[in-house]
C-alpha cells in the first residue's frame, strides 16, 4: 500500500485535497460527457503493477481445465455471457500471481487431480468432456468424493470463490469483461457518489458500466477471450 506523510516525526497534515465531487447521475451519456463520477478514484501511477503485465501461473493444460471449470460455474446461456467470455480465468491467474501465490500449488494440484479423474472415468481430459459429465465430476469434487483427491472440497470452494470474484469484481482486474457480471445482477457500476434516484426501489437501475479506475481500464479494450500462452 502506498502511504504518504512526513518522513520524520513531524506535524504535517496530509495535503491531499479533493474538489467537491458532484453526485453521479443515471444518464450514461452525461457520465461519458465528463461527469466527475467517471474520474478514476485512484492515481494509477501510484498503484501496483498493472494487471496486464502480470505473469500467468498455469500451464496451458491446467488453464484449459480452469476455463472449463469456471464455465460450468457460470455457463453462457440465455441469461448472458459465461465465465469464459467474461475473462474469469484471466482474473484468477492475475489474482494468484499478484496476490495469492500461496494458493497456487494446491490449486494447480487440484486442477490436475480433476483432470486425472476425468481421464480415469471417461478416458478424456476434463476440458473435452460434455457438460453433463463435467458437472458430475464437479459435484463429486464439491462433496469431497473424488478418489485420490483429498482436498477436493477446499479446492472446489476456493476456485468457486475465485470464479465469483472474477465475474463480479471491477473489470480493472481482468474479469467481468464488458461488465457482463454486473449486468447479470443489476449492479450499475462504481461511482463516487449516489443520488436518491440511484436508491429508488421497484426496478432495475440503468447500467452505468463504470470502473473505479476509469473507462480506459474497464476491461473492454482487450476483448473477451483469455490471454494466450
Amino acid at each position, binding site marked *: 500500500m502506498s502511504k504518504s506523510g512526513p518522513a520524520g516525526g*513531524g506535524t504535517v497534515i496530509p495535503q491531499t485535497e479533493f474538489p467537491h465531487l458532484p453526485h453521479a447521475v443515471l444518464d450514461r451519456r452525461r457520465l461519458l460527457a465528463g461527469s466527475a463520477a467517471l474520474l478514476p478514484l485512484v492515481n494509477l501511477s501510484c498503484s501496483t503493477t498493472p494487471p496486464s503485465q502480470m505473469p500467468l501461473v498455469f500451464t496451458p493444460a491446467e488453464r484449459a481445465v480452469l476455463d472449463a471449470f469456471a464455465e460450468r460455474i457460470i455457463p453462457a446461456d440465455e441469461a448472458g455471457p459465461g465465465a469464459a467470455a467474461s475473462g474469469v480465468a484471466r482474473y484468477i491467474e492475475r489474482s494468484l500471481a499478484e496476490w495469492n501465490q500461496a494458493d497456487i500449488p494446491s490449486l494447480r494440484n487440484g486442477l490436475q487431480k480433476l483432470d486425472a479423474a476425468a481421464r480415469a472415468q471417461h478416458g478424456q481430459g476434463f476440458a473435452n468432456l460434455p457438460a453433463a459429465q463435467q458437472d458430475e465430476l464437479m459435484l463429486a469434487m464439491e462433496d469431497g468424493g473424488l478418489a485420490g483427491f483429498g482436498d477436493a472440497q477446499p479446492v472446489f470452494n476456493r476456485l468457486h470463490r475465485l470464479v*465469483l470474484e472474477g465475474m463480479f*469484481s471491477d473489470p480493472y482486474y481482468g474479469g467481468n469483461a464488458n461488465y457482463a457480471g454486473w449486468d447479470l*445482477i443489476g449492479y450499475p457500476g462504481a*461511482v463516487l457518489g449516489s443520488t*436518491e434516484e440511484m436508491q429508488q426501489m421497484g426496478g432495475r437501475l440503468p447500467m452505468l458500466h463504470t470502473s473505479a479506475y476509469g473507462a480506459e481500464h474497464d476491461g473492454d479494450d482487450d476483448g473477451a477471450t483469455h490471454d494466450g500462452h
Partner: protein
Amino acid sequence: MAIELPETDVVVVGLGAAGGVAVLPLTRAGLKVIGLEAGTWMNPAADYRADEIHNNVRALVTTGTKVAREVPTFRNTPDQVARQLPRHPMMNAVGGTSIHYHAQSWRLNPWDFRVRSATLERYGASYLPEGSTVEDWPLGYDDLEPYYDHIEYEVGVSGKAGNLRGVIDPQGNVFEGPRQREYPMPPLRSCDYLDHMMEAGRAIGFHPYRGPAAINSQAYEGRPGCALHGWCDRGGCHIRAKSSTDVTTIPKAQATGNLTVTDNANVRRIVTDNSGKAIGVTYLRGGEEYFQPARAVMLGTYTYENIRLLLLSRSARHANGLGNNRGQLGRHYFGHWDAQAGAGASALFPFDLNIWYGAIAQGVMVDDWADDNFDHAGLGFIGGASLHTYTEKHPIGAAAMGLYGRAPRRWGSAWKQFIRENAGRWTSAYIQTNTFPYANTWADLDPNVNDPFGDPVLRITSGPKQNEPKAAAHAADKMQQWFRAGGAIETTGQGGNGPALSTHAHGGTRMGLDPGTSVVDAFGFVHDVPNLGVLGGSVMGTAGARNPTQTLQALAWRSAEHLAAEWNVRTA
C-alpha cells in the same frame, strides 16, 4: 542502548479512535503531547477506492505492519492449544480503525452502565448470567453525557435526538438516555428501502429510527457531506466526510502547536521508576530504539495491544506486568456478540431493493429488543440486541448470497438465473448484542507464539456462553418479523456461537472502584500507577447493543480532561 529524547508532558501511545481523541483536550489544556503511532498517514488518493477487491477481498485499507506481526492466538477452553488466527482485525495508521469503520456512533443506553444492580432490582439474582463477572461501571450515563456531547460536536456526528432533556421524540431513539442538545447534524440521507422499512417497523409496533453516524450528513467544519457512494465498509473516505480522527481531532490538536505526531513508532515497553510510576516509553523507529520520557503516559492502542503492552512492561514493582498486581489484567475481556459471533438475520424480497450505494451507517435501527427495553421475566436471558437494516451492497458479496432453498446448488445455469433475479433483492441485518464479561473468558500471553522481536503475542481464551446467544436469537427472530412486515418472502436468523478475534474487543483493563476486580480507576488510570491512563474499549466493563466507538472516545476525552485538571496530583 536506547536514544534518550527530551522529556515531554504526555506521551500518547496509538493515534486511533481513542488516542486520536485524547490528544485534543490534552493539547488544548496547554500540555505538550507526543503521539506515537505504529502506522503512518494514509494517502486518500491512492489508498481509498470504490473497489471491492481492494477494500473487502484484499483488505488493503485494513492493514498495518505492526498488527500483522502480533495477531493474537485463540482457543475456547484452557485444555486446548491456542492457534494464531490468520489476520488481525484492526489496522495501523494515523486515525487507526476510525478510518475504515462503519462509523455508527452511539451513546450507550443508561442501563449498560448498571446492568448488575438494575438486574438485581428488577428481576433478582437468579437472572444474572451464570459465570458472569459483570459489575456496575464506576460511572453512570449522566457522568458521561457531557463527554458524549463533546464527541458529537468535536468529531462530528449526524443523527436525531430521541430524548432531548427528557422530551421524547419518536423520530429518534425513544429508548436513549436524555441528552442536553440535538446532534450537530441531521441524520444521513434516507432512501426508498429504508423509508419502506421504517414504515413496516412502525406498522408492527416497533420504534424504528435513523441511526447516528460519525459521518457528515452536510458540510461541517470544513469537510463535505457524505456522497453515499457505497464504499464505507473497510474503506476510507475519499472526501473526508467520515469523521475519522485523522481528519478531525488530530488536526485540531496539531493546530494548537502542542502535538507532535511521530509515525512508524513501535512502542515496546512502558517504563516505570523505582516508585512504580510511569516515566515514559521505549519504541523502535527506523531500526533505532528510543526512550521517550514523559510526565504521564496514555496508552491508547487497541484492546489486544493495551493488554499485551501492560503484561510485557514488567518491573520489580510490577512483576506480573503493569496494573496486574491483583491478577486482574486480561480478566473480564470479551468480544462483542455481533456478526463476528455469528449473530444475524437476512431476508429475500420480491422486488429490487437498490441498496448498492449508500453506507452501512445509512440505516434504520430498532431498539425495542435491546438492553432492558422489554420485560425479560421468564425469557431466560437479560439484555438483548439492536436491529439494524442498512444499505451499501457490493457485487461479489451480493452474488455470493444464500440460496434460501430456491436454487439447487451454488453454481450452474439454474443458480445463475437465481442470482440474476435475486442478487439485488436480498439483504442482511446487523444484530449487536449486550455482552458481558465471564470467568471463562480472558486474555494472557501465549506461551508458544512470539512476535519477530521475541515478545509473546496475546492469547484469547473464550469459553461458551448461555445468555448472549439466547438474547441474540430472540432479537434475530424480531428482525425476521420486521423483514416479513416489509414484504420479505424468505428470512433467516441465528443467535451465533461466539466471536474469535473481534473488532469490538472489550475489557481486559476493566474500569472499576475495587482494585481487586478491575485494572483502572473511575477515570481510566491504573490503580497503582496514577500517571498511566488507559484509553479504548479495554476499559469498558459491558458491551452495549451497539458499536462501542463513541463511548470509548467519550471516555478517552474524560480521562484526558481529568489528567489535565489533576496534573499536579497525577504526576506528583
